[in-house]
């Protein structure tokens, strides 16, 4: 029993990271219809940046992460303006290919700037808590909390601010929103800014929990899409529920079936969901 609980708790931390990645993907997909595959590489960039702020400039972890998130938002704005906007009215396949090209570019830039070695962000949070036999590391707890806080902030932004209302309007019906005077360009920029910030946060958290290295970004992006498909493309609650489910099921599968095939779970889930319930658990038909 303890073992099951322990595996589940282990999975929650990773699941929280998946939630953040998926949120970044789902806002872009739901509102702008773009499968922003480069999101994983942006997350990696954020992780490397957080590491640099921490090591080179001595900033404490959360401060470094916050600073990196701001940088990430800027990167998001640039990506929208320079790469995706020119193909906004072209066939969808073009946007996807742009996404692939961007992935290569950002991975390449990461390699050039930060090197090919894996990077582990050291944090001072090394305590370990024992709750009735289930052991949880302080760092993992903080990861889960951070994800909750960020999700809460985004939710508030979406529901309480004017910008948030514009974003929701565009999500519901772009034509109508334009007619009502919403500045779609501005909305696109905001969406990408938010998405990239969240991605950067995810990257920083993964860097502290495990490591940042070439190739990790791609894996995260794919898992992010798996969560999207599981939870429903464009659904924010879906991203949250889906992310946690994926994280926990991966841990369970690794613990009770085989750790080697752990990654395959995400893909199988994706394929099965697409076959039988393509709109996802919480998506709309």
């Amino acid at each position, binding site marked *: 029993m303890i073992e099951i609980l322990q595996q589940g708790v282990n999975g929650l931390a990773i699941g929280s990271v998946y939630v953040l990645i998926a949120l970044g993907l789902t806002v872009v997909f739901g509102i702008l219809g773009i499968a922003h595959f480069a999101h994983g590489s942006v997350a990696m960039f954020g992780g490397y940046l957080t590491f640099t702020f921490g090591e080179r400039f001595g900033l404490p972890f959360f401060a470094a992460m916050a600073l990196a998130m701001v940088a990430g938002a800027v990167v998001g704005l640039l990506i929208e303006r320079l790469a995706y906007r020119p193909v906004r009215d072209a066939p969808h396949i073009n946007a996807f290919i742009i996404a692939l090209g961007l992935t290569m570019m950002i991975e390449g830039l990461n390699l050039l700037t930060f090197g*090919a070695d894996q990077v582990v962000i050291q944090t001072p949070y090394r305590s370990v808590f024992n709750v009735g036999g289930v052991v949880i590391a302080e760092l993992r707890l903080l990861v889960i909390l951070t994800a909750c806080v960020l999700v809460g902030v985004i939710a508030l932004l979406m529901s309480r601010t004017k910008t948030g209302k514009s974003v929701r309007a565009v999500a519901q019906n772009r034509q109508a929103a334009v007619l009502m005077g919403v500045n779609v360009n501005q909305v696109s920029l905001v969406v990408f800014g938010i998405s990239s910030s969240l991605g950067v946060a995810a990257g920083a958290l993964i860097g502290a929990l*495990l490591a940042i290295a070439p190739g990790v970004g791609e894996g995260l992006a794919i898992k992010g899409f798996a969560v999207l498909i599981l939870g429903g493309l464009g659904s924010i609650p879906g991203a949250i529920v889906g992310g946690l489910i994926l994280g926990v099921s991966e841990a369970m599968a690794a*613990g009770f079936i085989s750790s080697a095939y752990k990654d395959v779970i995400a893909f199988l889930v994706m394929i099965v969901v697409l076959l039988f319930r393509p709109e996802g658990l919480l998506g709309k038909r």
Partner: protein
Amino acid sequence: MKQFNRRVVVVAVSAAMGLGMVWSAQAADKELVLGVNDALTGPGAVYGLPQANAVKMAADDINAKGGIKAGGDTYKIKVVDYDDKANPTEATNSVRKLIDRDGAKYLLGFCCSGPTSAVASFIDKEDAVMLVGNAAERAITAKGIPNLFRTRPPADFTGAAAGTFVAKRGARNIAVIGSLDVSFYGQYLEAFERELVKAGGKIVAKETFGLKDRDMTPQLTKVRALNPDALLVLGYVEPAAFVYRQAIELGMKMPRYGFTSGSEEQFLRVASSEQMEGVWDLRPTELTVEALDANAKTYVANYTKKYGSAPAPSSPYAYDQVYVLKNAIEAAGGAGDAKKVAAAIRKLAIPKEAVMKYLPTNGTMFDVNGQAYTTNGAFQWQKGKWVYVAELPSDTLAYSTFLRSLYK
């Protein structure tokens, strides 16, 4: 004015060319191309990059002292290195380039078993000599390839000694977590288990992880439930470091033994010194503070000065390869005949410049299989440093005979 300038240029260029031709005809220096194939990036880089650096350092030192003098010629070493990313396909391509395009007859490095095995499968058809370093797969020197030599002992040579050691320390139920799909870790474990069982112990779990995995908490959680006396970790430095760290994060307090071989710096990038405290590494007696003699001390000092970080414990396997070659080329009287040099290596005594401590077999550095042997040692992480605690006794001649018996 323009015409005058042009004439000046023509004269100057011809003079330069003439001088150049005369000057190059005078230099009787020949170029000796050393091809290095190693993992310079990716998960194997913790072993491969230090090896490549070590080769370059040795080459620079030799060139600075005038090069290799053999058979009336002076050879200046040129190192050409390729990154195989610890991948067998890349390694095959790299070696093809080295032999066909770069004209290398002498191939060094080879930190990782997968790529090394791939190259070993065709090297006997090539006009070359292959010197293998850190790669631990037994089969590499169990095929009787006449132009292949290895400075690092096979994994199971160390595994058996490790098994006896752990049993003597009182552990009876051992849980193993490692990259068990990689055959040389499998071989280490086989030999380890054999000795452990002889002493009355047993292996209660065998969990696997991949070379690129970082989250081993599922496997560790499973193992924790079995309450073993000790943990045995078999893997590359980076995943092993995560295992050591995550074991502490899961509240596991039993002794942790490993077969990983990494420098303090490499481990500290992932885990803190407190998390590493007490971890054992049961491996060949590679570079370490205590076992340092003059050669080794100089090696560490020079490497640190040249590359800005301490050398990895296994890097001297490649450094020594360069001096093996140098001495063999001098003995053979030239570097042009790869077969002759290979024959010279076979008869070579341990070079005086070697950094690792080798045990000669019948007076030569390499046995009949082309295999060299170092002693095995038990190291423990104490307050941020790997400390040499004890030698793990092992029988070189017996193993050499065993290896010879494996030829198909």
